[in-house]
């Protein structure tokens, strides 16, 4: 197979031994695979720590060349309704597995974004087809997975990668891609990636388009270009009492960059500390952020909630 030109694919571990920083989990899952006996798995943890990678490695190790025929990958946040579960999942379950493994695998990525109904319809399917199908669910927050589903799965909690592992990955990638990364740049990469290898490799690849000598400045340039600068403007307009402008700008940013309320609120929250306000006001606003973020997670209208948050910045 030709290597991918996209680094997050190219450098994705192909076997268990290449997976970094999740030793316990790898050891246990490896023994399941060796016995060709796999329970349903629930892989929980922050993004970019190896959940999808492990699912793919399991498939390759179990099914070899034909892994794609026995492996259905669904991304729950793109197809999160009950119809997906009923149709695609059931259709796949109904056919027998090919090869010498008695079951097939369904990998439901980001399954915490499945609706409750979709999750409930899954519990039945998980039992009904237990003889020929295993589920691997991945999620960021296991609290969003219904209890009955959790109880049917063996749960693995992934940790963010430690610094030393990130450093190792930086070394590997820069060796293979013939990049010069100095110490300060390494530190910056560790900081930027925040334990997320996908983010790390995307940033590295973007940097490599500019130069093969990666400096701290280049990294921050790439990263700040990736973040909309308008957030600060929005908050400043609101603080100055110009709500209409803040509101228009907010809508514009969300639409132009295709960002969700949740994407934006993260930036607002970190921007609050940089505003020229009394500290008491700042913590009040942080509290408001938390409430609004909670509401959006619960399914409220992100525009209205965000606007109500922005309005609070006007308070004198």
């Amino acid at each position, binding site marked *: 197979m030709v290597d*991918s*030109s*996209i*680094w*997050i*694919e190219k450098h994705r571990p192909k076997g268990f031994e290449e997976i970094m920083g999740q030793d316990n989990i790898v050891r246990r899952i490896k023994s399941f695979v060796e016995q060709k006996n796999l329970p349903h798995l629930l892989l929980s943890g922050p*993004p970019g720590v190896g959940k*999808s990678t492990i699912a*793919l490695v399991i498939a390759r190790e179990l099914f070899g060349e034909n892994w794609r025929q026995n492996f259905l*990958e669904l*991304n*729950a*946040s*793109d197809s999160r309704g009950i119809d997906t579960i009923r149709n695609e999942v059931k259709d796949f379950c109904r056919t027998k597995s090919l090869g010498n493994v008695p079951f097939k695998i369904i990998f439901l*990525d*980001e399954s915490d*974004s499945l609706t409750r109904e979709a999750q409930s319809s899954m519990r039945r399917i998980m039992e009904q087809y237990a003889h020929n199908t295993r589920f691997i669910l991945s999620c960021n927050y296991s609290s969003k997975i219904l209890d009955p589903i959790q109880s049917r799965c063996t749960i693995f909690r992934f940790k963010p990668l430690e610094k030393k592992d990130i450093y190792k990955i930086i070394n590997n990638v820069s060796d293979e891609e013939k990049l010069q990364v100095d110490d300060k740049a390494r530190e910056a990469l560790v900081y930027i990636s925040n334990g997320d290898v*996908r*983010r790390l490799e*995307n*940033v590295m*690849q*973007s940097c*490599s*388009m*500019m130069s093969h000598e990666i400096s701290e400045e280049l990294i921050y340039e*790439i*990263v700040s*270009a*990736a*973040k909309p600068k308008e957030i600060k403007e929005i908050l400043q307009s609101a603080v100055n*009492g110009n*709500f*209409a402008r803040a*509101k228009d700008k907010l*809508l514009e940013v969300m*639409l*132009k*960059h*295709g*960002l*969700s309320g949740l*994407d934006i609120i993260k930036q607002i929250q970190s921007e609050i500390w940089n505003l020229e306000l009394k500290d008491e006001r700042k913590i009040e606003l942080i509290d408001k952020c938390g409430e*609004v973020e909670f*509401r959006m997670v*619960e*399914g*409220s*209208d992100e*525009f*209205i*909630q965000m*606007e*109500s948050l922005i*309005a*609070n910045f*006007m*308070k*004198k």
Partner: protein
Amino acid sequence: MKQYTPNKLNEIIGQDTSKILKWFENPKKKALLIHGPSGVGKTSSVYALAKEKNLEILELNSSDLRNKEQIKNVIGIASQQQSLFGKNKLILIDEVDGISGRHDYGGLAELNKVIEDTKHPIILTGNEIFDSKFSTLRRKCELLEFKAVDYLELFEFLKNMCKENNIKYDETFLKNLARKNNGDVRAALLDLERSIEENSLEEYGDDREYKDNIEDALRLVFKSKDVNILLKAFDKVDMNPDEILLWIDENISREYDENDLIKAYQAIAKADVYKGRITKRQYYRFWTYQSAMMSVGVGLSKKEKQKGFIAYKRPERILKMWIAKQRNAKKNSIVEKFALKTHISKKKAYQEFGFLVKFLKEPNVKLELELDESEEEWLNEN
């Protein structure tokens, strides 16, 4: 309700009519343009002035043809002649904004000419006179704005009207009626008249109410602080709650500011939370709470009532979202291809897009993602 037509300028409620007198006695310009919403006394005050000063009125209103010829022949000539009965003349061009560009071709230009040459005072009235086609006219006239009449003043007026005519009335009813009509005295009088005919001064159920449009309902909510009014504000609006919420959201910052706005947004956001709970639990009783937050919650957020008429706008968010979607269609398809190749969701790919966009332009990557020409084009532009 012809019999309630005011005979004197000071019988006109809610407007500073002394300014009309001042203009009449000491005009800086030959024409006066009175503008403002309907039913607040623009035409009535012209007739009152005529009665007070014993003037003969020559009127041209929107029921007449008002093209170039007509204005020249009727007004143009009259503006040069003395009156037949020895009275002084007053020329009234009613509803000047109703002069049609097509059917009344050349009318406005002729009107401008007439004003220049006239020997008699001219008063013009109109609702919307800030269109650019009236710019010359506005320059040639003294401008006088009539505002929507405050509902309390209107209420007092209706009350007196009832007293004078020995009509029994219910205060709350009259108050609602006054508020309902948004400062439109004529409409309020018509409503009152009709209720008297139907003998139903306690019950409020006339046709005007069925015509409740969203703007009227919004105005109630933004202007009132009376819980009974607020609670029912959106009842007769033929629109689903989500859409009403969009309307509130679009327009509230035109009426409220500072702390009022903060509080109102708290209420709106809470209404939205209840809306979410309805969807999630399919428990429709939450609607009661959503509705209360949208109407009473928003209404009581203001410290003081704002006077003045503000035009509302149709919500633009949905349209803007649609336009953005069209514009982002290419980005979307690129994101989708990338997501599929790298085992991530579209959503995540979207979030990471800023980190990707640099290397997506790399030839090998483009090839691997099988980007088509239009997608490549999009990448090069962004």
